[in-house]
């Protein structure tokens, strides 16, 4: 679906767009492309949905959004895509995924993430979400984050480099 050059382009965009007047010229130089060629590729990657967005990535914690809840629901398979689409439309929901149930010990299929300034706000937003999406009938658990042991690991970056080698080779 994407060639080696676009993969390298994504790696550079993941690191961040340079804060200069003509940022795509800098990226183009590294890829031996013209600025126009880079812009066309970026537009295509966005159109294909490979780049979900290209903009400001904020640091929630630093901006005072310190409460983070992962909420899991046991939604029947027949309803999950409809409910997942509905849940993801709320602007306080940050992620919304289906994951496999793990028997009785963890019977949940729908996961969503809510960031807020404090637990109280997050729980209010969750109540609103549950009511609006008709989630009352499903078993659920709310997991607030406590301490963060680690953010981004080394392998993610190593893999990006490795992918470049594979794509080129």
């Amino acid at each position, binding site marked *: 679906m994407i060639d080696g050059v676009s993969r390298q382009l994504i790696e550079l965009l993941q690191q961040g767009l340079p804060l200069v007047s003509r940022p795509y010229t800098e990226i183009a130089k590294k890829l031996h492309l013209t600025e126009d060629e880079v812009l066309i590729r970026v537009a295509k990657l966005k159109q294909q949905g490979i780049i979900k967005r290209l903009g400001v990535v904020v640091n929630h914690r*630093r901006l005072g959004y310190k409460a983070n809840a992962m909420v899991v629901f046991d939604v029947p398979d027949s309803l999950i*895509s409809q409910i997942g689409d509905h849940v993801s439309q709320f602007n306080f929901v940050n992620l919304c*995924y289906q994951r496999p149930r793990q028997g009785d010990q*963890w019977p949940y299929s729908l996961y969503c993430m809510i960031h807020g300034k404090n637990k109280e706000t997050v729980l209010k937003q969750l109540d609103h979400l549950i009511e609006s999406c008709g989630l009352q009938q499903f078993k659920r658990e709310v997991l607030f984050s406590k301490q963060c*042991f*680690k953010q981004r690991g080394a*392998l993610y970056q190593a893999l990006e480099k*490795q992918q470049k080698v594979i794509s080129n080779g």
Partner: protein
Amino acid sequence: MLSSLHKQLLNDFQQDLPLSATPYQDVADSLGVAEDEVLDAFKELQDQQFIARIGSVIAPNLIGTSSLVAMSVPENHLQSVAEIINQYPEVNHNYERDNRFNLWFVLVAKDSESLQQVMADMELQTGYKMLYLPLLADYFINLGFELDFDD
């Protein structure tokens, strides 16, 4: 303190920076300020870590294979188990959460075989079983995050 320009830059350009050769000039034009002011304000936001980056957010599982993993670890072992887990370069976003499954992290590996190997090794090293929770469907359309600066 955040100026009104800082706040506009934080809130209004998460989904999309204008896709043009001169995105910062375009942002400046839309806000009625000079390009240098926009560049300086973005630099300040980055230096003070209000912004992680101005860049792309890509679809999951595009680079390698990843999975969410959960563990149930007794409180008195949590710190030492978290340290063992952190030593693996495949580990990202390792958090304690207030649940019987209290340790949650994301594993990233080059393919699903190496992901399974890492998990098997972790279970051996820590002595605790794991829940393997890979992504089946992604319903989220990432439109960025609406910030409230009122308080």
